[in-house]
């Protein structure tokens, strides 16, 4: 089994599905000979040709809109937006069209497209390159929003996203693109899109996170274990539709929950999770649900980004608070 990092796993999934299904077409800025600025599409144009790996003109609304048209014809476009900071011109297409085409036409036309984008902070990138706006997409009915947190999940979830008959926004935590390697069998096996992944079992507190923040969350869980606190760690992975069952079951067991995300707190997806717990799991709670998140301020330029991103310490502190609550 090859050892792959997350971005290599993305590449492997793309290559696998392009070989398996000639309806899969990759498009975006610099995805061709350059292989994408993070090399997610490296080698694909050489292998599958210019017809299947298209460098587009520099226009994000176009990229999304083209994909809708292509998908309506039965292609499976996998579009790359170079950074999430440039994804906002696609909101109109994703909200008004991609997410609705099936519904509007009562199933006559469908939109099996994937919109991929690297997102999040922590790599000392220039301005507008480090934001986390997943909750914006998670609010849109008819979309799926998926975020992998490991090479294996990147591989399996991206395959599932491409094969899914509906539009998927697939956000890749670029901070962990090359953080670690994992054995990933390149066998085309996809992972389900309707479930959270429980990464670690524990009985004292439920830690819920996704994407790159899971790494700090897991480190916090290690540290807490040393302190005698058993944390259950859940990777939401599929943010929309969200599998609240797994989270609620875990909180029913632990009675405590801390949600960790990079995005700004207000109206982040953490709010939705906390709200669902308040609605359905209230009586199981020993302590208030805490959110450890990015601040409600503009993502700072890189000198201060380390202060913006939740660190292990902030997570541990929050867990201690919910443990000590009475």
């Amino acid at each position, binding site marked *: 089994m090859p050892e792959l990092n997350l971005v290599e796993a993305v590449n492997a999934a793309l290559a696998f599905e392009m070989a398996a299904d000639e309806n899969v*077409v990759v498009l975006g800025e610099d995805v061709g000979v350059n292989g994408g600025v993070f090399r997610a599409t490296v080698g694909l144009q050489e292998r599958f040709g210019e*017809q299947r790996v*298209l460098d*587009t*003109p520099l*226009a994000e*609304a*176009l990229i*999304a*809109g*083209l*994909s*809708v*048209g*292509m*998908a*309506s*014809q*039965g*292609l499976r*476009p996998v579009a790359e937006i170079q950074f999430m900071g440039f994804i906002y011109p696609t909101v*109109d*297409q994703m909200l*008004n*069209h991609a997410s609705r085409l*099936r*519904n*509007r*036409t*009562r*199933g*006559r*036309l*469908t939109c099996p497209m994937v919109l991929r984008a690297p997102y999040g902070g922590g790599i000392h990138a220039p301005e507008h390159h480090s934001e986390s706006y997943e909750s914006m997409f998670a609010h849109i*009915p*008819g979309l*799926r929003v998926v975020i992998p947190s490991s090479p294996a999940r990147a591989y399996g979830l991206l395959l599932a996203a491409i094969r899914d*008959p*509906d539009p998927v926004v697939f956000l890749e935590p670029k901070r962990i693109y090359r953080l670690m390697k994992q054995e990933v069998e390149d066998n085309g096996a996809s992972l389900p899109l*309707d479930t959270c992944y429980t990464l670690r079992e524990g009985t004292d507190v439920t830690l819920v996170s996704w994407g790159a923040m899971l790494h700090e969350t897991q480190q916090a869980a290690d540290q807490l274990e040393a302190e005698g606190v058993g944390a259950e760690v859940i990777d939401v992975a599929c943010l929309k*539709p*969200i*599998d*609240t*069952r797994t989270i609620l079951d875990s909180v029913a067991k632990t009675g405590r929950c801390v949600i960790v995300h990079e995005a700004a707190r207000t109206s982040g997806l953490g709010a939705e999770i906390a709200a669902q717990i308040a609605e359905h799991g209230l009586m199981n709670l020993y302590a208030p649900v805490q959110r450890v998140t990015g601040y409600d301020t503009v993502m700072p330029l890189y000198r201060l980004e380390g202060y913006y991103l939740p660190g292990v310490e902030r997570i541990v502190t929050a867990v201690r608070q919910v443990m000590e609550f009475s």
Partner: protein
Amino acid sequence: MSTEKPIVDEKDLECVAKFEVRFTGYLDKDGSAVRRLPEIADLPDALIALYRSMVLTRTFDQKAIALQRTGNLGTYASSLGQEAVFAALGAVMRPEDVLVPYYREYGTQLMRGVTMTELFLYWGGDERGMDYAGPRQDFPICVPIATQVPHAAGVALAMKYRGEPRVAVTVFGDGATSKGEFYEAANAAGVWNLPLVLLVNNNQWAISVPRSEQSACQTLAQKAIAAGISGEQVDGNDAIAMFDRLSAAVDKARNGGGPSLVEAITYRLSDHTTADDASRYRRDEEIKTHWDYEPIKRLRQYMIAKQYWDSQQDEALQQTCRREVEEAAQAYLNTAPQKPESMFDYLYETLPETLRSQRDELATTEQQSRA
């Protein structure tokens, strides 16, 4: 690799590119030819098909407005005065082509097999009006201006990718030419030489904003120059000219010649929609002038002069159209409503587990309120 020439070191490079925008019109306002006519002008059947579509559309329009006035239809956008544009487009497209419309192309849609009942359903607030039984791959009506233009480019890209001799056609108004997506898609179509026709229905108003305030450019056709594709102007109230130029554009696209933009100069004789009152911003005289150029009369007078048509046939056609429209309206009014829960049933291919409770809640509330 870059195709720019290296920085010049020669003299006299002053003029590096030249462009012209041409206009085509054949009939004057009374339906007389002003120049040598194209082939279609001598094909009575083809002309009658165009004419029939125009009359049917106008009859449909009137009924739709009547339904709206009586509370039986929502806001409706009429195509009054622009029928020639849409009839011609319907005539030149093949079934396997794909139409990506905005919201006034009833003529085209009907010729492609969309039913009037479906159109009534759409404006009557029922999604089933977008589930066309006829042209299964055509896009539904598109309300957010210009957002459909990249869809059409994507459809054309899929056709080209598969090497199919098919064409995507998208239509939009003069106002839409101010939106970024229009330019982005036209530009991409140029880069990839897509089998795409961009048809501008320049009816000279975007709600209350006249064409002159929409852009400083002399013609909308010249917007094609920015995309490096061909663009031209046509008399949009001359069905013969529209047929002629659109068939050229569609043929060219089908034969690998790439995209074109066709600007049809026409006029919105109606209010913008039934929710609009154009008298707030438009002078009556302007409308009156433009009635002189309306397309149905012009084609009829041409056909009558050529003895392809007579007033008896005309009366019969009007009657048939009225009957067809009435039948469609009845079918629409008799259509049983969708179940409220249907709002969940086409959201995803399979209803996600997490949405089941919402669907159930809705179904229960509904039963309660019916009870």
